[in-house]
C-alpha cells in the first residue's frame, strides 16, 4: 500500500513538472498553432531559439522575454509574421529573418546582444519602436543594431539604438524608409552600401564616428535629420561616397569634426541645411556636379574645402561674410570666398586653432579675400545671402546646471556682502 502511495506521489509531481515545462516551450506552442494564429505570451521568460516558418503573431506583455545562447527568434520562408512587445536576452542575434515578406517587428527591447535584428532577402518589412543597447567596448568587437541585406521595401521607424557597430547597416537593398530613429555611440549611425531609393528623415544621429555613411548609392533623400556631435578624431556627420542623385535638405549638422564629406558625388543638391559649430562644414573631392545652395553656415572653423574642381556654392548665408548690400536685395554685393588658407592648414594641424583670431591670421584671411576676388577660383559664392542673426537654435533648459548656477550666485552675493 505504501509503495502504491509513494509511486502515486512520484507520478503526480512528475506530471506537474511536465506541465510547467510545456508552458515554457514556446516552440511547441507555435508548432501546434495553425497558420495565421495569434499567440498571447505570458509575463515570463521563454527559452529560445524559436523557429517560425508560417504566418503567426506573437504578442508579449510588459515582461515577456526570450532567452537564448544563440539566436532568439528565427523566421524563415514565411509571410505575415508579427512580433510584438518582446524583450530579448540572447548572446548572438535577437531576431533573424530569411526570405520573409509582409511582416512587422514592433515594440521590442534587445539588451546586450551581439547583434539586434538582421534580415536577408526580406520584402515589405516594418520595424518600429525597437530599443537596442549593445555591449560596452570598442565597436570593432560588436555587430550591427539592425542589418538589412539583399532586401526591398523596408521601413524602420522610431528605433533607439546605441553602443553597436552600425546602428542601421543596409546593403544591396531597394526602397528604404527610416524615420525618427535615435542612434548614438557606434561606428556609423546609418551605413548604406549598394542601395537605391532611400529616404532618411527626422532621425537623430549623434556621437558616432560617422553619422550617416552613404556608399555606392543611387537616389537618396536626407531631410530634417539632426546630425550632431560626431566630434572625435576622423569623425564626420555625413559622408557621401560614390553617390548619385542625393538630396540633402533641411538638416541640422552641428558640432561635428567635419559636417559633411562628399567624395565622387554626382548630380546632387545640398540645400536649406544649417551647418553650425563644425570644424569643417563641407569637404569635397570629385564633386563638381554638387550644388550647395540656401544653406546657413554659422560658427564653423572652415566653411568649405575641396580639390581643384570644387562644387557649386551659391545663395548661401555665412556668418563670416563681411560684404555689404547697398541695393537692399538681400544678396551681398561682393562674392564670398569659402577658401581660407589658414583654415586649410588648421584642418591639417588642429593645434593651429589657437591662433584663429590672431592679427596675422585675420590679415591672411583678408589677403585671401582680395586675392580671390581678382581671379576665378573654386568655392566662391557670387550671390551670398546676408546672414540672418535671428536664427533660432533649439533651447534646452538644463535644470541641474541652472540650480547649481543659482546656488553659486547666491553664495557669491552672500560672501561678497559679508566681506564688504
Amino acid at each position, binding site marked *: 500500500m505504501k509503495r502504491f502511495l509513494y509511486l502515486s506521489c512520484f507520478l503526480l509531481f512528475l506530471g506537474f513538472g511536465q506541465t510547467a515545462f510545456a508552458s515554457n516551450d514556446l516552440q511547441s506552442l507555435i508548432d501546434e498553432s495553425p497558420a495565421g494564429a495569434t499567440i498571447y505570451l505570458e509575463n515570463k521568460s521563454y527559452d529560445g531559439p524559436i523557429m517560425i516558418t508560417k504566418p503567426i503573431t506573437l504578442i508579449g506583455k510588459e515582461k515577456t522575454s526570450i532567452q537564448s545562447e544563440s539566436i532568439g527568434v528565427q523566421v524563415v520562408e514565411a509571410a505575415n509574421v508579427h512580433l510584438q512587445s518582446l524583450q530579448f536576452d540572447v548572446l548572438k542575434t535577437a531576431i533573424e529573418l530569411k526570405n520573409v515578406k509582409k511582416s512587422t517587428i514592433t515594440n521590442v527591447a534587445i539588451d546586450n546582444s551581439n547583434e539586434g535584428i538582421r534580415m536577408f532577402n526580406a520584402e515589405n518589412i516594418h520595424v518600429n519602436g525597437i530599443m537596442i543597447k549593445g555591449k560596452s567596448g*570598442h*565597436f*570593432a568587437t560588436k555587430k550591427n543594431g539592425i542589418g538589412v541585406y*539583399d532586401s526591398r521595401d523596408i521601413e524602420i521607424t522610431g528605433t533607439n539604438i546605441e553602443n553597436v*557597430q552600425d546602428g542601421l547597416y543596409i*546593403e*544591396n537593398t531597394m526602397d528604404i524608409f527610416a524615420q525618427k530613429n535615435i542612434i548614438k555611440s557606434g*561606428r556609423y549611425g546609418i551605413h548604406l*552600401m*549598394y542601395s537605391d531609393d532611400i529616404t532618411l528623415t527626422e532621425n537623430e544621429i549623434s556621437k558616432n*564616428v*560617422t553619422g550617416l*555613411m552613404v*556608399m*555606392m548609392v543611387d537616389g537618396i533623400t536626407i531631410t530634417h535629420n539632426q546630425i550632431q556631435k560626431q566630434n572625435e*578624431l*576622423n569623425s*564626420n556627420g555625413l*559622408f557621401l*561616397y*560614390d553617390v548619385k542623385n542625393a538630396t540633402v535638405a533641411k538638416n541640422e549638422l552641428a558640432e561635428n569634426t567635419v559636417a559633411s*564629406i562628399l*567624395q565622387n558625388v554626382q548630380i546632387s543638391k545640398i540645400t536649406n541645411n544649417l551647418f553650425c559649430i563644425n570644424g569643417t562644414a563641407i569637404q569635397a573631392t570629385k564633386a563638381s556636379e554638387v550644388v550647395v545652395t540656401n544653406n546657413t553656415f554659422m560658427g564653423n572653423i572652415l566653411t568649405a574645402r575641396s580639390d581643384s574642381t570644387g562644387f557649386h556654392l551659391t545663395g548661401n548665408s555665412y556668418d563670416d561674410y563681411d560684404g555689404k548690400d547697398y541695393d537692399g536685395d538681400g544678396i551681398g554685393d561682393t562674392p564670398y570666398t569659402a577658401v581660407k588658407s589658414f583654415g586649410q592648414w588648421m584642418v591639417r594641424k588642429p593645434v593651429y586653432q589657437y591662433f584663429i583670431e590672431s592679427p596675422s591670421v585675420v590679415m591672411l584671411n583678408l589677403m585671401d579675400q582680395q586675392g580671390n576676388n581678382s581671379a576665378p577660383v573654386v568655392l566662391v559664392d557670387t550671390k551670398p545671402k546676408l546672414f540672418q542673426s535671428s536664427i533660432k537654435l533649439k533651447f534646452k533648459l538644463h535644470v541641474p546646471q541652472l540650480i547649481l548656477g543659482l546656488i553659486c550666485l547666491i553664495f557669491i552675493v552672500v560672501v561678497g556682502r559679508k566681506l564688504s
Partner: protein
Amino acid sequence: MKNKILALVTLAIVLVGCSEQSYEPKEINPETAICKICNMSITEMDFAGQIIFKNGDHDVYDDLGCLVEYILESGEDKIGAAYIKDAQDHTWIDVKEATYVYASDIWTPMNYGVLAFASKEQANQYLADQGTGKLLAYEDLLTFEWGIHTH
C-alpha cells in the same frame, strides 16, 4: 685623430646611403585607423591593406579594392611596398606576389569580393573548395571593375 673621425663619419654616411631600404608592414590601430580612400574605419583587420611609401609614411585601406584604387589614382612612383592580408592565415603579403580570387558572393568590407592568397596553390584550393570564382593576378586588379558588383 680628426682625420680618422672624419673618415669614420663619412664611411657611416656612405654605408647608410648604400643600404637597401626596407618597407616592412606596420601595425594597424583599430581605434584610430581609417581607410585612405573610403574613410571607413578599419574594423575588419583580416581584409585590411596598407601602403608603405618611400619616404616612410604609410596609409591603410579597409579593402583590397580601395588599395588598388589608390594605386590607380596616384601611381606607384612613391610607393615602397603595398601589403594585403592573406585570406587564410591573415598575415601580410606583398600585393605583387599574391594570387587573388574573385567571386560575387565573397564578402569583403566594401563588397568588392576579392581575396588575396600567398600562393597560387592556396588560391586554387580555395576555388576548388568553393566551387565558384575566378583566379586573378596583380596585373588583373589594375583593370578589374571594382565596386560595380551586386551581392
